[in-house]
C-alpha cells in the first residue's frame, strides 16, 4: 500500500493514535508528577512543593513492608518464569510441528489455562497444596501459578512462529550435510531467536506484575504487587508513585535492551 501522498485517513488516524497514546500516558504522568510530591504531600493533588524526597525514601526502610526483599523475589521469580516459559514453549512449539496423539487436547488445555479466571487458579492451587501438605512458597506454588499464565502466551506465539516457518531451510541445511543438532542450533534457533526473546520478555513482565494468581499461593513472603497491596493497609505515601516511576523507567530500559539484542542478533545473522 503506502501511497505516495498521505490521505485524509492517515491524518484522522494519526490524531486518533495520538489521543490513544495520551490516554495511555495521562494517568502515568499523574504518577510521574506526584512522585515529585513535597515531603508533606499526599497521594492526591495538590502538590505540596516539589522534592526528590520520595525517591530517596524508596531506598529507605518503610514503616511497613519491604520493597527490597519483595522486589528481589519478584525479579528472581520473573527470571525463573521467563527461562522456563522460553524452554517449555520452544519444546512445545517443536512438538506441535508434528502430529501426535493428544496434540489437540494439549492445545486446548493451553488455551484453557489462559481463560480460567486467575482467582480460581489461585484458590485451587492453594487448596491443593494445603490438602497434599506441601508448603506453599513464591518459588513453588506461586511459580506454578505464574507458569499457567505465561505458558499459554508462549505456546501461542511459538505456534504462530512455527506455523509459517518453512522447512525448506532445514532441508537445505541437511542437504549440505549438517547434523540435525547443527541444523537446529545454526539454522532454526537463530531464525526464531527474536520470537524467543519476545516470549521471554512477555513471560517476565506477566510474572512481575501478576497479582491475583499469587494471592493465595505466595506462602510466607510477598511478591512486589502483593507487598504494595499489603502496604496500603497502613499510611501510604507518594513513595508508591516513586516506585511506579522507577518501575516504568526500568521497564523502558529492559525494552531498549531487548530491542538492542534483537538488532544485534539480526545484524549478526545478516553478516553470517
Amino acid at each position, binding site marked *: 500500500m503506502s501511497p505516495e501522498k498521505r490521505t485524509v485517513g492517515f491524518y484522522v488516524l494519526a490524531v486518533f493514535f495520538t489521543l490513544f497514546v495520551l490516554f495511555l500516558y495521562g494517568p502515568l504522568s499523574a504518577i510521574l508528577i506526584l512522585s515529585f510530591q513535597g515531603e508533606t504531600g499526599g497521594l492526591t493533588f495538590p502538590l505540596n512543593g516539589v522534592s526528590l524526597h520520595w525517591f530517596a525514601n524508596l531506598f529507605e526502610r518503610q514503616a511497613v513492608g519491604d520493597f527490597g526483599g519483595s522486589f528481589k523475589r519478584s525479579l528472581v521469580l520473573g527470571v525463573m518464569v521467563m527461562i522456563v516459559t522460553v524452554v517449555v514453549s520452544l519444546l512445545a512449539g517443536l512438538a506441535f510441528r508434528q502430529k501426535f496423539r493428544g496434540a489437540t487436547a*494439549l492445545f486446548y488445555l493451553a488455551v484453557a489455562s489462559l481463560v480460567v479466571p486467575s482467582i480460581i487458579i489461585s484458590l485451587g492451587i492453594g487448596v491443593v497444596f494445603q490438602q497434599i501438605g506441601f508448603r506453599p512458597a513464591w518459588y513453588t506454588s506461586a511459580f506454578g501459578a505464574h507458569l499457567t499464565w505465561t505458558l499459554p502466551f508462549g505456546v501461542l506465539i511459538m505456534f504462530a512462529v512455527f506455523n509459517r516457518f518453512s522447512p525448506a531451510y532445514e532441508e537445505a541445511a541437511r542437504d549440505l550435510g549438517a547434523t540435525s543438532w547443527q541444523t537446529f542450533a545454526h539454522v532454526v534457533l537463530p531464525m526464531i531467536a527474536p520470537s524467543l526473546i519476545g516470549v521471554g520478555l512477555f513471560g517476565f513482565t506477566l510474572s512481575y506484575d501478576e497479582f491475583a494468581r499469587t494471592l493465595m499461593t505466595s506462602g510466607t513472603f510477598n511478591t512486589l504487587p502483593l507487598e504494595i497491596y499489603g502496604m496500603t493497609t497502613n499510611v501510604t505515601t507518594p513513595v508508591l508513585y516513586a516506585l511506579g516511576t522507577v518501575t516504568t523507567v526500568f521497564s523502558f530500559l529492559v525494552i531498549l535492551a531487548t530491542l538492542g539484542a534483537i538488532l544485534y542478533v539480526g545484524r549478526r545473522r545478516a553478516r553470517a
Partner: protein
Amino acid sequence: MTVALDRPAIAAAAKPARRRRFAFGGVTPYLQSAPLALILSAFLLLPIIMIVVVSFWDYDFAAMYPDFLTTNYSDVLGSWVTWKTYLNTIKFAAIVWALTLCIGFWVAYFLAFHIRTTAMQMVLFLVCTVPFLTSNIIRMISWIPVLGRNGLINSTLVHLGLVPKPIEWLLYSEFAVVLAMVHLYTLFMVTPIFNTLMRIDRSLVEAARDAGASGWQVLWNVIIPLAKPGMAIGTIFVVTLVMADFSTVQVMSGGQSASVALMMKNQMSLLQYPAAAANAVVLLVLVLLIVAGILRIVDIRKEL
C-alpha cells in the same frame, strides 16, 4: 516429582532430530510436549479438579467437610443476586470488549498500514507497550488523582469555567470502572490484531484496488476478514480478563459495583470456600462457553 520426567524431555530437546533418526514412530513430540503437559496438569487441571470437588463439600463456621452436596450450587444459581451480578459483569465485559476492539483495531491498522518503515512501526508499538509494564495496581490507582472531585480533570474544567461544580460521576462510578479497564486491557487487543494485520499479503490489497475497490471496500471486504483471527484472540484475552476482574471493579467503583469475582472474594474473606468454589465453577463454565463460541467462529489454531 517432575524431576525424573523432565530430564529426558530436555535431553530430547537438545538433540531433537538425531533422535528422530532412530525414532520409533515419533517419540520426540511426546517428549517435547511433556513439560508443558506436566506443568499444566499439576498447576491447572489438578487445582480445577480440586475446586470442583470442594464445591460439593459441606462447610460450617470453621471447617469444610468432604461430602456430596448440591446446596452450594442451588444457593448460587437460585439467588437473584448471582444473576444480577453475572449480568453486571457481562455488561462490563461487553462494553470493554467493544471499546477495546474498536480502539485496538484502529491503532493496529494505523501502525500496520500507515506507518511506512518497520523501525517506526516497532518504535510506535513499543510506545504503546511501556505503560503496560507498570504495575497494574499503581496504574489503576493513578486514575484517582486524575478523576477525583478535586482531581486534574475536574479542577481544570472548573478553572476554565466549563462546569459550575466538579463532575461527580468521573470517579467511583461504572464509568470509572470501564475507563480503567479499557486503559488496562487495550494492549491485549492491539497486539494480536497488529500481528495479523502485519501478515496480510500487501498484494491482495493492491489487487483489490486495481479491481476498482474503494478504500472502504478494501477495508471491509479484504482487511477486516483477514484480521478476524487477531480480533478473536484479542477478544478472548479481554473478555476473560474482565470476567475475572475484582480489583478494578472494587477500587474504581469505590466498592459500589459488583462483579462475579468480587462476590467470590467476599465469600472467601469469611472462609466460605465451598460456596466460593461453586461460584468459581459456574464462572469457569460460563467463560469456557464464551471462548468455545469464539473458537467455533474462528479456528485460531489454523489461523495463527
